[in-house]
C-alpha cells in the first residue's frame, strides 16, 4: 500500500552551475558573477492512494512531474513538503539502462542490480534462471552490457524488477523500446504480479497501454493531478486538450 499526502517537490535549477571558488569569491564583489538560479515546483500538493494489487497509470505532458513523482514513491527523492507512507518493498524501474555498468557482463550487472535492493548472492542464484529465461538473453549473459541493444538492456532491467517480488512496482516509460512481442510479454508479466497482490504504477505516453492495463489513471499537469479516475476518461481528457492546471476533475 502506498499513500502520498500533500506532496510537493521543489528543485533549484542553477543556470551557470559554477561551484568553483573563484566565481564564488567574485560573486561577493560583483553581481554579474552572482549565480543565477530558478526554482521549479515539480510537484504541488499531490495526493495519491494506491491499494494492494491496484495498477495506476500516470500520464501528462513532458516536464509535468511524472518521473519526479515516481522517484518520490521509490524513496529516491525526498519530498520538500508532504508525507509519504509506503508499506512493503518497492521495485523501481525508472530509467533505461540506468545502473547498468557498460563494461560488466549481463550476469555481473544482474547480481549488482539485485543487491541494490538488498538481495544476497543465494537469493539471486535462486531467481537467476527465471530472470534470464524471461529476458530471453541466455546466450548474452556473459557479454558486456555495452554490446546490448537498448531493447536488450530494457529486457534485463524489466526482468530483474519484476522478479524481485516487491509489493510495489514502479515503471517509467521503459516498455516503449521493447519489440511488440516483448511488450505483450511485459504486460502479461505485470498482470501476473498484480494478480499476486503487487501494486503497480506506470508512467507512459502510450495511452492505449493505460487503457488496457491500468485500473485507474491520473493526469499530471504542471505538477498537479488535474484529473483522476477511469483510464478511458482521463485519457480522453488528456487528448481533449485538458492540459492546463485546473481544479481536479474526478470521473
Amino acid at each position, binding site marked *: 500500500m502506498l499513500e502520498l499526502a500533500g506532496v510537493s517537490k521543489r528543485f*533549484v535549477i542553477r543556470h551557470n552551475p559554477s561551484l*568553483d*571558488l573563484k566565481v564564488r569569491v567574485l560573486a561577493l564583489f560583483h553581481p554579474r558573477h552572482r549565480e543565477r538560479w530558478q526554482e521549479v515546483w515539480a510537484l504541488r500538493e499531490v495526493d495519491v492512494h494506491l491499494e494492494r494489487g491496484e495498477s495506476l497509470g500516470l500520464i501528462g505532458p513532458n516536464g509535468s512531474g511524472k518521473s519526479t513523482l515516481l522517484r518520490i514513491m*521509490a524513496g529516491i527523492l525526498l519530498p520538500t513538503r508532504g508525507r509519504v507512507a509506503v508499506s512493503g518493498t518497492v521495485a523501481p524501474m525508472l530509467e533505461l539502462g540506468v*545502473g*547498468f555498468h557498460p563494461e560488466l557482463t549481463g550476469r555481473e550487472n544482474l547480481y549488482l542490480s539485485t*543487491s*541494490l535492493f538488498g538481495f*544476497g*548472492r543465494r537469493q539471486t542464484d535462486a531467481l537467476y534462471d527465471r530472470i534470464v529465461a524471461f529476458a530471453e538473453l541466455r546466450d548474452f549473459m556473459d557479454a558486456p552490457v555495452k554490446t546490448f541493444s537498448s531493447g536488450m538492456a530494457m529486457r534485463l532491467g524489466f526482468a530483474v524488477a519484476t522478479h524481485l517480488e516487491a509489493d510495489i512496482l514502479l515503471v517509467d516509460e521503459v516498455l516503449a523500446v521493447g519489440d511488440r512481442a516483448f511488450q505483450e510479454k511485459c504486460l502479461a508479466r505485470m498482470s501476473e504480479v498484480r494478480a499476486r497482490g503487487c501494486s503497480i504504477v506506470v508512467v507512459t505516453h502510450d495511452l492505449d497501454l493505460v487503457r488496457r492495463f491500468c485500473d485507474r489513471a491520473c493526469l499530471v499537469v504542471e505538477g498537479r493531478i488535474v484529473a483522476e479516475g477511469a483510464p478511458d476518461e482521463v485519457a480522453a481528457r488528456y487528448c481533449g486538450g485538458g492540459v492546463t492546471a485546473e481544479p481536479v476533475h474526478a470521473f
Partner: protein
Amino acid sequence: MIRDLVRYRPLIRNLVLKELTLKYRGSVLGVAWSLAHPALLLLVYTLAFRHVLRVPVPHYPFFLLVALLPWNFFATAASAATGAIVLNGSLLRKAAFPREALPIASVLFVFAQLLLALAVFLPALALARGPGLKWTAVLLLPLLLLHVLFTTGIALLLSALTTAWRDIAHFTEVGLVLVFWLTPIVYPADMVPGSWRSALALSPPAAFAAAYQDVLFWGRVPTWTTATSTLLSTVAALVLGLVVFKTMSPAFLERV
C-alpha cells in the same frame, strides 16, 4: 543505519567486486600486477637508497615501505572517495539503498590492494636480511582495523562534501601531498626538530605511520600517545563522517 548496512552487505561486496573486475579485466597479468607492485618498489628503493641516496636508517627500503604502503592505501582511498557519490549518479537514481555503501565499498576496494601488497611485503620483511619480523607484528591486525575505520570516516566526509563543493576533490589531491611530506614516512620521526615533534603528535596520519613503524620495523609496542592518538582520531573521523554524510545524503540526487 548499522542494521541497514548489515542487510546490504551483499551490495558492498558486489560493489567491491565490480571495481576489482573492472581493474583487472582485460589485463593479461591481472592480480599479479598488484602482487608485483610492492616487490618492484622494494627492488627499486633498495637499489636507489644503497647506491644513490644514503639515509642514516638501517634497512631503509623496509623502513620506507612499512609506512608507505599503508599511506598509499589512505591517500588512494581518500581521493577515490571524492568521486564515490558524484560519479555514481546512475546507481543513486536506480534504488534507495543506503548511500554509505558507496564510499565504504570504495575504501574496501583500495584496502584489498593493501592486503595484496602486504601478502608480498610481509614475507619479504620476515625472510630477507633486514629488520626481521617480531611478535609485535600481531598488533598489525588491530592497527589495520583502526586504519580502515579511520579511512572510512574520512571517506564518508569527503564523498559527501564533494557533492556540494566540487573543489574538495582538488583540495584533497593537494592536501594529501602536503600531509605526506609533513608525515614521518620517508624520514624517521627523530629527524624532526624537537619543537615540531610535539605538533606532530597531534597528526593522525603521523600517529598511524609511527604505529606501523613500531609494530613492523622497530619491533616494539607503540607508545601510549601513539595508541590513544590512533584510537581517538578513528572515533572522531567516524563520528564526523557519519554525521556530515547523514545530514547531506537526502540532497545527493539533486547534486550529482
